[in-house]
């Protein structure tokens, strides 16, 4: 309704929305707060925690203990790499499904999604053996391949829903204009789908960044990303809340910041064609 919203009502909504927003965000906020406390202070009652001294000591310890930069870099390479590779494979597939649909298109799409339901724990050993034999254990390449494969269905689906919204006439126009299929994809389809591709990329980076099972099990030292970094803080001896908070903050901050800056794209992409 375009009728004027009374300020009173707006105020009530504002209070409610902020309360909910802060409640949902609170665990993250609290983690960040604890990361700036000493171990001893971190387990005190909330009021004492807030009034205690602020310190960078946990960050210093974490930094000293583990090679954050390397884990971070591995995470970046793996998530970007798998996203890029995924796009290269998925764009043609999504083009085919969106613009030359056949009777089986829907089924193929659903089948692709169903491959995501394969429980990873059930197939770890076979994959491990295969990776061992081809020498992909503890390599970024290996992880890029696995993450590409597990996220490919999602990428294909997202792109498919995006491409379907692009009028086929434009591609036909390109064809009339003498564009080959390759040029049609590179010069017309891809740039037009940029918003969709952007959100696909974002979601995929998030999924790849947070994937903890394969990244942990197929790496040792060289290719280990931030998920492995976290695994070394999960329950050490002694007080660890502050160190855990610091490590957690360091692990999630990059993706959180990226997500915040690009949330518009992300939100649009997340709708999976659910919203027309």
């Amino acid at each position, binding site marked *: 309704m375009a009728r004027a919203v009374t300020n009173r009502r707006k105020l009530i909504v504002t209070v409610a929305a902020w309360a*909910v927003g802060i409640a949902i*965000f609170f665990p993250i906020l609290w983690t960040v707060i604890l990361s700036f406390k000493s171990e001893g202070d971190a387990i005190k009652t909330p009021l004492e925690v807030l009034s205690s001294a602020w310190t960078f000591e946990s960050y210093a310890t974490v930094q000293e203990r583990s090679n954050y930069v390397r884990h971070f870099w591995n995470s970046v390479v793996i998530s970007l790499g798998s996203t890029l590779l995924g796009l290269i494979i998925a764009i043609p597939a999504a083009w085919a499904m969106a613009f030359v649909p056949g009777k089986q298109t829907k089924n193929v799409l659903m089948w692709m999604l169903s491959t995501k339901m394969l429980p990873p724990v059930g*197939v770890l050993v076979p994959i491990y053996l295969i990776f061992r034999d081809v020498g992909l254990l503890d390599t970024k390449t290996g992880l890029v391949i696995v993450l590409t494969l597990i996220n490919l269905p999602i990428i294909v689906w997202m792109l498919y829903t995006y491409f379907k919204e692009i009028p086929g006439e434009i591609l036909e126009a390109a064809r009339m204009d003498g564009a080959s299929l390759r040029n049609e994809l590179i010069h017309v389809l891809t740039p037009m789908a940029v918003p969709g591709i952007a959100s696909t990329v974002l979601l995929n980076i998030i999924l790849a960044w947070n994937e903890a099972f394969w990244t942990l099990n197929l790496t040792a030292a060289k290719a280990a990303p931030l998920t492995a970094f976290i695994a070394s803080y999960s329950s050490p001896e002694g007080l660890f809340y502050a160190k855990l908070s610091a490590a*957690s903050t360091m692990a999630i901050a990059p993706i959180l910041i990226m997500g*915040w800056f690009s*949330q518009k794209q992300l939100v649009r992409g997340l*709708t*999976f064609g659910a919203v027309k």
Partner: protein
Amino acid sequence: MATKASRAAARVMISPAVLLLLGWMIVPLALTLYFSFLRYNLLMPGMEEFTGWDNYSYFLSDPAFTAALTNTLLLVGGVLLITTVGGVLLGLLLDQPFWGQGIVRILVIAPFFVMPTVSALVWKNMFMNPVNGLFAHAFKALGLAPYDFLSQAPLLSIIGIVSWQWLPFATLILLTALQSLDQDQLEAAEMDGASALSRFWYIMLPHLARSITVVILIQTIFLLSVFAEILVTTNGGPGTASTNLTYLIYMQSLLQFDVGMGSAGGVVAIILANIVAIFLMRMIGKNLEA
């Protein structure tokens, strides 16, 4: 578009994706299937032998199996219920005009970016720990005995943690869907004398149906394989109170290194997942077409 040339091109274009996924599915699946009929324990090399259905009968008759099955369904169902209902309500709230919309949206979306391991660690230690956790402090401040979430209500606690991670996802999709609702329809309903509640029930909710299906589909895919949250918080316990299928297979296959049994479990899980998948696809198929 439908010329012979373009159809041929389409087949070429789709084949890398299809072949890769086929490989990704078939190769491990075939190996898993093969292993599932072997007595194969990593710790006892050289003793592999064919055992027929042994692994299956052991896996299926394990009392933990029924528990895991129930827990899996409860976990998926519980999280879906909380996130969709919560998502709709939150979506409705955030759809209203208010001050600071952008910032609140950022706050709400944040949990989606948090690694499952991290979120489980944070909830377990900083919040649900019955001695040093925030909830314990809150209970004590209110003069109540601290509640031990992870041992008294392990599955519920995990449902809570997982819901926290997925609520933003549901909220965002549903919020976007709400925003896409044709205002004319709401106005028409208003002219037709529908109260706010009726407008929600008869106009908004049906409009959201499609988005809700997508939320359910995507979340189910991810929720069926919830693992890190359980490993970090309860290790599937106490007893088997929070063991889901994925975790059960993990225990069989990676804790005991009983690849044979784990594979049998994997096959069972794949079958179950596909039953769920078929069910979902049916529902989606209908809802996505329109």
